[in-house]
C-alpha cells in the first residue's frame, strides 16, 4: 500500500463524514466510530508490516509542497521509534472508543466520537510528521478535542481542569512556536529556508551555541509541560481526575508521549549543544519526578489520582532514559513510553470500569472487590504488577534498561550515574509500595454490602482489556523484536547528537 502514512491521517477524517451524516442516530454513530478506529488500527499494522526492521533512518517517506512560499513541506515518515508509537496510539484509541460505546458516555455521543476522531488525527500526525511546522499543527490539533472531551464529558470540576490543561499546554507550545520560527530563520538564507527535519539535521551546524541554548529552552518547555516533568505537572492530576475514562486512557497513553517523543525526535538531535547545556537540570528534574511522583502516589486517597501521579513518576524514567544519552537509556525510554501507554492505559480503563459500577473512587470507600469480581481482579492484578515493574511483564524491561543506562551515565562534570542510578532505583521500590498497598486496600478485605450485587466484567470490557493484557505479557517475555526495531533509530539520533557537539561553530 502506497501512502500508508497519508492514509493514517485521512481515515479518521473520512470517518467524520458518515458520523456527521448519522449524527442523531446513537447506534449508527457508535458503529461508525468503532469501524473507523478499527480500520485505522489495521492500517497502522499494515504500516508496521511494511517497515523494514533494523534500519535506522526514516522509511515510508512522503513529501509534497505545502507552503511553497516558505519552503514548508507536507513531509511524513517513520523510524523505529514512531513506527511503534503509531500502532500504540491507534490501539488505545480503538479501545477507548469501543469502551465508550458501552454506556460510559451518556449524552452527546455524536460530538464525543467526532472529537475522538479529530483527536486521533492529531495524535497519529504528531508521530509521523517530519516537518516542524506540520508537527506543530498536529501537536496543537490534539488540544481542542481533548479540551472538549474533558470539559463536556468530565467530572464535577471539569471546567477548571480542562482550562488548566489547555492554558498550561498552550503556554508551552506557543513559546515552541517562537522557537520553530527562529529555527526556520536560522536554517538558511532567504529563499533556502526549511523546517524539514532531515534537511535541518544536515544544517544544525548553523545553530550557534547561544541560539541552541534558548531554542532548546523554548522546545523543552513545551515538551516538559506535555510530559509532564516536575514542576510543570500540576495540570495532570486535575485533568485525569476529571476526564472521562476514554479521555484518561489516551491522555496518559498517548498525549504524554508526545512530549517524550518531541525531546527525542527534535530537541536532542537538532540542538545537541543546547541539550548538553540543560542536561544537569533535565537529569535532576527527571529523578525528582521519579521520587516525587512515587511519594505523592503513596499518600493519594483517590484511586484515579494515584494512577495519575504514578504517570509522573513513569514519565520521569522516560526523560531520564533520554537524557543519559546512551543506547540503553534511549531504548529503555522508548520502551517505557510504549509500556506506559499499554499499562497505564489499562489501569485507567480499570479504574473507570470500577467507577462506573460503584460510583466511588476514594480508596477508603472501596475494599474486598476481589470477592465479587474474580475476572476483574485477575486483569487488574496483572496490570498493577506490570506497572510496578515485575520481571516477565513489560514494565520491567523499560525501567531496567533506563536504570542500566543511568548507571553508565558519565558526564564531564557533576554527579554521574552512580549517584543518580540508586536514587532512581528507589522510585521502583516506591512504585511497589504504592501500587501493592492500593491493590490490597481496594481488592482485599471484606466486600461492602452495597457492592455485592454488582456484576463482574462485561464481555465488552473483556474485549477492551484482552489486547492490552496480551501485549503486556508478550512485550515482557519477548522484548527482543521490539528492541531490534527501536535500537538502530535511537543509536542514530544519539550519533547525530554526539556529532553535533563536536562541530566547530561558526
Amino acid at each position, binding site marked *: 500500500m502506497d501512502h500508508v502514512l497519508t492514509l493514517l491521517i485521512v481515515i479518521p477524517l473520512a470517518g467524520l463524514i458518515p458520523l456527521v451524516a448519522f449524527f442523531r442516530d446513537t447506534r449508527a454513530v457508535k458503529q461508525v466510530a468503532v469501524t473507523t478506529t478499527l480500520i485505522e488500527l489495521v492500517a497502522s499494522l499494515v504500516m508496521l508490516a511494511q517497515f523494514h526492521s533494523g534500519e535506522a533512518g526514516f522509511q515510508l517517506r512522503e513529501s509534497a509542497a505545502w*507552503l511553497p512560499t516558505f519552503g514548508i513541506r507536507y513531509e511524513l515518515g517513520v523510524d523505529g521509534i514512531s513506527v511503534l508509537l503509531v500502532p500504540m496510539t491507534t490501539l488505545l484509541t480503538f479501545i477507548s472508543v469501543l469502551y465508550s460505546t458501552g454506556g460510559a458516555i451518556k449524552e452527546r455521543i455524536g460530538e464525543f466520537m467526532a472529537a475522538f476522531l479529530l483527536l486521533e488525527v492529531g495524535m497519529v500526525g504528531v508521530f509521523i510528521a517530519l516537518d516542524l511546522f506540520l508537527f506543530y499543527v498536529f501537536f496543537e490539533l490534539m488540544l481542542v478535542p481533548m*479540551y472538549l472531551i474533558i470539559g463536556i464529558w468530565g467530572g464535577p470540576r471539569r471546567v477548571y481542569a480542562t*482550562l488548566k490543561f489547555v492554558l498550561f499546554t498552550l503556554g508551552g507550545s506557543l513559546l515552541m512556536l517562537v522557537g520553530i520560527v*527562529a529555527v526556520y530563520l536560522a536554517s538558511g538564507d532567504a529563499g533556502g529556508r526549511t523546517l524539514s527535519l532531515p534537511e535541518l539535521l544536515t544544517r544544525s551546524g548553523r545553530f550557534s551555541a547561544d541560539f541552541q541554548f534558548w531554542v532548546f529552552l523554548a522546545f523543552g518547555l513545551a515538551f516538559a509541560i506535555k510530559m509532564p516533568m516536575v514542576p510543570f505537572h500540576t495540570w495532570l492530576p486535575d485533568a485525569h481526575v476529571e476526564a472521562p475514562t476514554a479521555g484518561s486512557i489516551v491522555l496518559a497513553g498517548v498525549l504524554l508521549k508526545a512530549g517524550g517523543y518531541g525531546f527525542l525526535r527534535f530537541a536532542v538531535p537538532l540542538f545537541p549543544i543546547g541539550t548538553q547545556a540543560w542536561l544537569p537540570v533535565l537529569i535532576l528534574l527527571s529523578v525528582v519526578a521519579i521520587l516525587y511522583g512515587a511519594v505523592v502516589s503513596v499518600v493519594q486517597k483517590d484511586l484515579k489520582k494515584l494512577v495519575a501521579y504514578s504517570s509522573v513518576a513513569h514519565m520521569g524514567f522516560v526523560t531520564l532514559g533520554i537524557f543519559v544519552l546512551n543506547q540503553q537509556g534511549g531504548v529503555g525510554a522508548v520502551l517505557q513510553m510504549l509500556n506506559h501507554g499499554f499499562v497505564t492505559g489499562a489501569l485507567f480503563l480499570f479504574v473507570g470500569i470500577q467507577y462506573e459500577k460503584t460510583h466511588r473512587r476514594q480508596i477508603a470507600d472501596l475494599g474486598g472487590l476481589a470477592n465479587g469480581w474474580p475476572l476483574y481482579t485477575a486483569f487488574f492484578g496483572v496490570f498493577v504488577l506490570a506497572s510496578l515493574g515485575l520481571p516477565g511483564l513489560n514494565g520491567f524491561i523499560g525501567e531496567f534498561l533506563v536504570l542500566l543506562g543511568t548507571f553508565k551515565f558519565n558526564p564531564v562534570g557533576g554527579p554521574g550515574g552512580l549517584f543518580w542510578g540508586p536514587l532512581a532505583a528507589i522510585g521502583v521500590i516506591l512504585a511497589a509500595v504504592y501500587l501493592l498497598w492500593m491493590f490490597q486496600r481496594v481488592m482485599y478485605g471484606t466486600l461492602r454490602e452495597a457492592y455485592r450485587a454488582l456484576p463482574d466484567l462485561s464481555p465488552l470490557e473483556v474485549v477492551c482489556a484482552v489486547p492490552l493484557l496480551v501485549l503486556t505479557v508478550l512485550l515482557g517475555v519477548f522484548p527482543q523484536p521490539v528492541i531490534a526495531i527501536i535500537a538502530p533509530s535511537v543509536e542514530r539520533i544519539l550519533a547525530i547528537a554526539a556529532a553535533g557537539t563536536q562541530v566547530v561553530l561558526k
Partner: protein
Amino acid sequence: MSLSDFVTVLPEAVVTATACLVLLADAVLDRKAARIWLPVLVVAGLVAAIFSGPFTVASHTAFGGFVVVDTFATFFRVLFIVLAIFTTVVAPEYLERRQIPAGEFYATVLFSTVGAMTIALAADLITLFIGLELMTIPVYVLAGMARRDRFSNEAGLKYFLLGAFSSALLLYGFAWLYGLSGTTTFTGIADAIGSGGLTNGATLVALALVTVGLAFKAAVVPFHQWTPDAYDGAPTPATAFMSVAPKAAAFAAILRVMIGSLGPLGLDWSAVFAILAAITMTGGNVVALAQGNVKRMLAYSSIAHTGYILAGVAAYQAGAAASAAVLFYVFAYGIMNLGAFACLIYLDLDGTRGATLDELNGFSRRRPAGALAFAIFLVSLTGIPPTIGFVAKVFILQPVLDAGLVWLAVVIALNAVLAAFYYLRVVVHMYMYDEDANAPRLLPTRLLTAGLGIAGLATVAIGILPDGVYRWALQAAAPFVVR
C-alpha cells in the same frame, strides 16, 4: 482626467452606484419586497465590483498622481468588498427584528466601503484623508443607527467626537508634512524626508502627530478608549463591520503613510511601534479577561489584535515579509472577527446589548451549527491550528523575529495564552454548561447560519492551505520595502 482614469477606479464606482441604487430601491419597493431584494441587490453589486477590477496589477497612477492602483490596492479592495458582503448576509434578520431601516443600513455600509477602498488607493495625503473621512462618517452613523437605544446613541456620539478629534490631529500632521516637503504625494514626501532625516523639530512634530492620529484610527493603546463603548453600543451587525473594515483601512493607511512616505524615518518610529504593539496587545487582553459581556470582551480583544498587527509594522526591517504579514493578518482578522461578532446576532436581546457569558450557556444544544461556527472563530482568534488565525500569527512572528525583536515575539506568544483563557471561556459556556431558565430567546436565522458556515469553512480551509492568499499578500506588499 480622462476616461482611462475612471476605468482604473471602476470597482469603487460600481460600489458607489450600488449604494445609490439601494437608496432608490428602498424608496420604491414595498416593505416585503425590500426585505428580500435589498440584500440581493447589495450582494450582486458587490460581487460585480469584485470582478470589475483586476486581482493583481502592475502599479500605475491615475488622476494626475492622486490615486495609485497596485496589487496593494486591489488586495484591500477585494478584502473590503468581501467584508461588506459578509456584513450584508449576517444583518437582515437582526435589522428586521430591531426595526432598523435596512436600506439605510446597507447604503451606509456601502459608502463606508467606498471610503475604505479609497484609502487603499491613495497615493497622496489628500486622497487618503478624503478616503478616511468617507469611511468613518458613515460608520458614526452605523454606530448610532438604533435611534431609540441610548447605548447606540452613546456609541455614535463617542465615536464621532473621538473620530473627529483624531482626524484633526492627523490632518494637522499632514499639514506639517506638507510644510516640510512642499508636496502631498507619498513619494515626494519620502524623497524630501529621506534627504533630511529626523534632524529638525518640525519633522518630529509631524511624525508624532501622524503616528498619534493613525493610532487613534486603529485603536492602539493608549488611544483606544473610544473602542469598547462604540463597539458595545452599536447594533451588532454594525459592530461586526466596524471592528474590521475601518481597522483594516487604518492599517492600509499606516502602511501607505508610515512605510510608503515616512519609511526613511523607519528606524526612528519602529521602536515606538514595537512598544506600542506590546502595550496594545497586553492591555487589550488583560482588560478582556475581566469582561463578563461577550460583546465587550470581543471589543477589547480586537484591540489586542491591533497589537499583533502593529508588531508586523514594527518589524518593517524584515522587508516585504513584514508588510505581507500585516496584510494577511488583516485579512484573517477581518473574517474571524466579523464572524465572531456576528455569532452574537443569534441571541434576541433587548437593545443593542451583547450576550453575557451566562446567556450563552448551552448554546451548542440550541444552535449546534451556530455554536460550531462561533467555536471555530474563537479558536482561530486564539491562534490554534488548523485555522487562519494560527497561520496569521506565524506569519507575524516570522518578520518580528527576523527583525531581531525576540522580546516582542515572546510577548506575542504569552499574550496568545492570555487570550486563550477568555476566548475558550466562551466555548466553556456554549458547550460545557447547560442552558438555564433565563436563557434568551433566539432569532430565526437561516441566512446568518449560512453566512457563518461559509466563513467558518473559509477560516479552516485557508488555515490549512494559506499559500495562495499569502502569495497574493506578498505581491501586494512588494512596494512596501524601505530601501
